[in-house]
């Protein structure tokens, strides 16, 4: 189902009464209010789905689709309820989430390092890009889950298999975006750096990579999603612990409540990681608001 177009949340700005040069900025309070309004506006569809789910779950009494309220109750029982020293999170939460996230961190972290390094090389050298570009595009085009049997074959059912799969699935999009970003760096900045006679490492670390950061970060954001999906999928397929494993076990023993609450947890982890990434991204790219006081 495609989501219906969201209705206009705020009335269009009334034309400024002051001369056009002095752009009027809404006050802090209005902005906060508007943001809340926008947030509520975006949530209404979710709320509708949840209500329908709840109703369906109660009416149908299906074992497979329990009402939301019971899923949340179960979520509290299984994942929360630990002592304050564990931030009120259960033992199971800590053991499973740490297992999964540490696989994710290793695989994705490696993908980020390797992807950016190789991407910079590809972006700087048209010759190398021409030689290896097709290879990169080939791997990037392979559906990531196809690699799963290969990964299992190589590593067996061990954590390294999950790490490898996460790495292999997310490295290409980082590499391609970095290469594009680096190749597209404004030549005026390069000329400026050249006239400052900066050493090579300064050129790369302080000029080229930051200048390409908008695209690099766009690639990282996509790879973050891919990495999370592969984290769960690889755990569904072959492993003995982790969040995906919890889902498989719950499903195969008909504990559908546990299965659904594991889904909720994975969704929440995804949201938290994306929000955190968004914050870092905005902070790193503050300079892109290059309009600023420039026009004055």
């Amino acid at each position, binding site marked *: 189902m495609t989501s219906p177009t969201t209705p206009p949340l705020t009335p269009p700005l009334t034309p400024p009464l002051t001369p056009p040069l002095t752009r009027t900025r809404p006050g802090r309070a209005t902005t906060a209010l508007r943001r809340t309004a926008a947030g509520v506006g975006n949530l209404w569809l979710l709320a509708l789905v949840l209500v329908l789910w709840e109703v369906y779950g109660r009416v149908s009494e299906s074992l497979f689709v329990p009402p939301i309220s019971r899923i949340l109750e179960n979520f509290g029982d299984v994942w929360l309820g630990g002592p304050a020293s564990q931030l009120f999170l259960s033992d199971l939460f800590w053991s499973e989430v740490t297992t999964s996230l540490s696989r994710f961190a290793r695989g994705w972290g490696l993908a980020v390092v390797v992807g950016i390094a190789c991407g910079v090389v590809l972006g700087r050298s048209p010759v190398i890009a021409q030689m290896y570009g097709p290879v990169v595009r080939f791997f990037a085009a392979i559906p990531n889950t196809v690699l799963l049997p290969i990964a299992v074959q190589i590593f067996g059912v061990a954590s390294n298999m999950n790490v490898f799969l996460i790495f292999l699935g997310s490295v290409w999009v980082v590499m391609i975006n970095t290469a594009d970003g680096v190749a597209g760096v*404004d030549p*005026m*900045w390069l*000329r*400026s750096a*050249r*006239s*400052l*006679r*900066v*050493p090579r490492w*300064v050129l790369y670390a*302080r*000029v080229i990579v*930051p*200048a390409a*950061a908008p695209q690099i970060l766009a690639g990282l954001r996509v790879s973050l999603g891919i990495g999370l999906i592969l984290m769960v999928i690889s755990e569904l397929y072959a492993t003995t612990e982790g969040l995906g494993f919890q889902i498989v076990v719950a499903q195969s023993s008909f504990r559908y409540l546990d299965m659904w609450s594991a889904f909720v947890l994975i969704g929440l982890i995804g949201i938290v990681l994306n929000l955190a990434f968004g914050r870092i991204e905005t902070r790193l790219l*503050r*300079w*892109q*608001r*290059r*309009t*600023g*006081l*420039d026009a*004055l």
Partner: protein
Amino acid sequence: MNVVVDRVRKSYGRGAEAREVLTETSLTVRSQEFVSIVGPSGCGKSTLLMMMAGLLKPSSGEIRLGDEPVTGPPAGLSVVFQDYSRSLFPWMSVRRNLTTALTASRLGKEEQRSRVEHALESVGLAGKGEMYPWQMSGGMQQRVAIARALVTEPTVMLMDEPFAAVDAQTRADLEDLVLRVRHEYDVTVAFVTHDIDESVYMADRIVVLAANPGRIAADLTVDLPRPRDQVETKLDARFAKLRSEVFRLVMRPDTPASA
């Protein structure tokens, strides 16, 4: 240090596409001198300046800084580009922009810090080191660009239409600023502009370029007293005379002088 342009030619493109932008040109900017290079848009001013900066290779001929042939950006030479938003690094604070310019000179931390402070003070931006270029007006950003050029304590500073993008009031301030720091840092300046008043007001000597193909149309000495003053200097009869002379050369380079 002298900057010598020795029988330099420049064409862009190859073979049948080749277009000569600068015919064989020779020019010496003497030590401590302030030379304006003025000419109509597209006559090759930037091309000439970028070759002097070692950022562009001449098609033939040689550029020398002192006795050393220039084959790449030389030490002791700084450039201020026209487009500050694309030459300053917006992801760095002002201070970091300046220390980045110092990475090649391998100075101690303390020396770096004091050079940066001094340069910022010289351009009237003391205490603004933690700001980011995008938080500043165009005039302030160009001040940062000048500070970044000065922080290496260069012997030669090349400026390519540095004030083309700022308003008249700011422009006058920046002109006087450059005339001041030029003495403070004892720097030789080649200053490209298309603004005729500016070329006369700033310089000891004016090199007028003509277009199609680019060449030197005239080389005039400016005998106006220093220090220059935005009001007094521009009222001087010699200013008016030079101004109209340059104007004639720029607008109608092929007509003979009307005595």
